[in-house]
């Protein structure tokens, strides 16, 4: 007899297995090739790799710090107040998430480039230009990655019980104290998720950086740019691209594991 339930279950399992294989094979290929490649470990110690790694780490850290500083108030306002134009701001925040990063790069160039909307007057007044500087790398990362934090933080703040905050106020706690002692701890899992997404996105930023900041070792060549340069024939070669990819993969896995551990503790509290 034909059993519909069984057929459905079977199909679900089969589809999951096929996707699981598709999902795991690329990473397996990367690791397999990295192990086979005798030069992997040697390449990881080259100046170009070290510079790219250092640059990626500190630019993405600054990006996350800036996202926290400027993004938290934005997320809080979006979650709690109903100022005019709120829906427009809300939609605009999502724009960089939906847009290809290359578009973000072109947009940054037309705004902050030497002939850009703001870039041109700034250069004529101060002589300062944004292009080809680490500043430009951070700007590209911030535009592309901050929305991920703001989005997560906003839903985190929305989920906090407003009654508890009110109780804190009636007990004489200041707004700031209430925010840091009540709101932030309650929204912590969401905030952490936002931080991880924002950091990961800025570590992975390629398109906007390449277009707006350029590609120069030690200054604007982050890890993803070093990977693509290696693939396009830079001295690191394909083996270098694979070695760099391996670092990024291991770093990503470590962050995810760490995040899960921290988040489950935050939820438990």
């Amino acid at each position, binding site marked *: 007899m034909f059993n519909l339930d069984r057929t459905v279950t079977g199909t679900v399992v089969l589809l999951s297995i096929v996707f699981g294989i598709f999902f795991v094979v690329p990473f397996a290929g990367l690791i397999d090739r990295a192990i086979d490649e005798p030069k992997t470990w040697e390449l990881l110690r080259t100046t170009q790799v070290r510079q790219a790694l250092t640059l990626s780490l500190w630019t993405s850290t600054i990006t996350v710090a800036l996202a926290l500083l400027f993004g938290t108030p934005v997320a809080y306002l979006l979650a709690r107040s109903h100022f005019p134009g709120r829906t427009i701001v809300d939609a605009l925040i999502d724009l960089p998430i939906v847009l290809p990063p290359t578009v973000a790069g072109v947009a940054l*160039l037309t705004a902050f*480039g*030497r*002939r850009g909307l703001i870039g041109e007057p700034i250069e004529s007044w101060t002589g300062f*230009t944004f*292009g*080809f500087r680490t500043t430009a790398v951070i700007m590209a990362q911030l535009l592309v990655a901050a929305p991920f934090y703001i989005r997560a933080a906003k839903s985190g703040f929305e989920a906090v019980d407003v009654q508890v905050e009110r109780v804190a106020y009636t007990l004489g706690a200041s707004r700031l104290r209430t925010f840091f002692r009540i709101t932030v701890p309650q929204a912590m899992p969401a905030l952490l998720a936002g931080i991880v997404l924002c950091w990961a996105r800025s570590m992975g930023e390629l398109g906007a950086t*390449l277009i707006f900041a*350029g*590609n*120069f*070792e030690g200054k*604007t*060549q982050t890890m993803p740019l070093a990977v*693509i*340069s290696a*693939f*396009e*024939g*830079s*001295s690191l*070669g*394909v083996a270098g691209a694979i070695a760099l990819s391996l670092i990024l993969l291991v770093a990503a896995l470590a962050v995810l594991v760490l995040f899960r551990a921290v988040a489950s503790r935050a939820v438990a509290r």
Partner: protein
Amino acid sequence: MTTLFSRRAGWPSALALLVLLVPLLGAACVGDDDAMPTASLAATPAPVEGEIVVLAASSLTDAFKEAGTKFTETNPKAKVTFSFAASSALSTQINEGAPADVFASADSAQMKIVTDKGNATDPVVFATNLPAVVVPKSGSPVQSFNDLAKPGVRLVLAGPEVPIGRYARDILTNASKASGGVSADFSGKTLANLKSNESNVRAVLTKIQLGEADAGIIYTTDAATATIDVKVIDIPTQYNVIAQYPIASTKGGKNAAGAKAWLAFILSPDGQAVLAKYGFGKP
């Protein structure tokens, strides 16, 4: 304000030029058709069919696209698919097993990377090109080749592995020779101005067109595609190098007959005429 105005004024004159050129081109084509019959028909090989995948240096973009159109006129069942990128990126792709039928490189070094691995054989030089300095039309501190070494110049080049990036560094080395060079530290001072290693020649041109960089070194053929935004400064002949473009059919391809026909076409008078039209020199 003035720069904006002059840039706008550039359009009508460019249009006028185009209007003037079109009838001339038309006349040239008619001339070709008249000459077609007997002689060249006899020499034309049998038409090939199927897809021909051609991986070609970025600088060949416009010339090869037009050559592709011409090629399919005589081979209507063939379809030429191009992938344009830095030759260094293409050589990596080919050695990684990209299914290409033809590789056209902007230098022999990148072709050698492919032939050394046995992925292509018997390359033939089919064109030459001349590097030149390009600067934005207005406001660049670079107005001569020697200005490249001036402190504060924002220079962009293609990466050192990209053919035009390598040629550019060779030129700077030539200009730093003890006898007859600009100065012994010319290359060092110029490379200290380097702000970005772009992925290919067209990316360098874009940075100049946008005015982000003050100067770059690209091929004269690429500079010619952007005369509205950029100014070309010739590199003194005693320092300049002549870029040699080799072409070969590649092992990973599926259309050997198509590859052979494309090579023959590029080396034929018709193919060479297209390349000459875009400013490439004879091999």
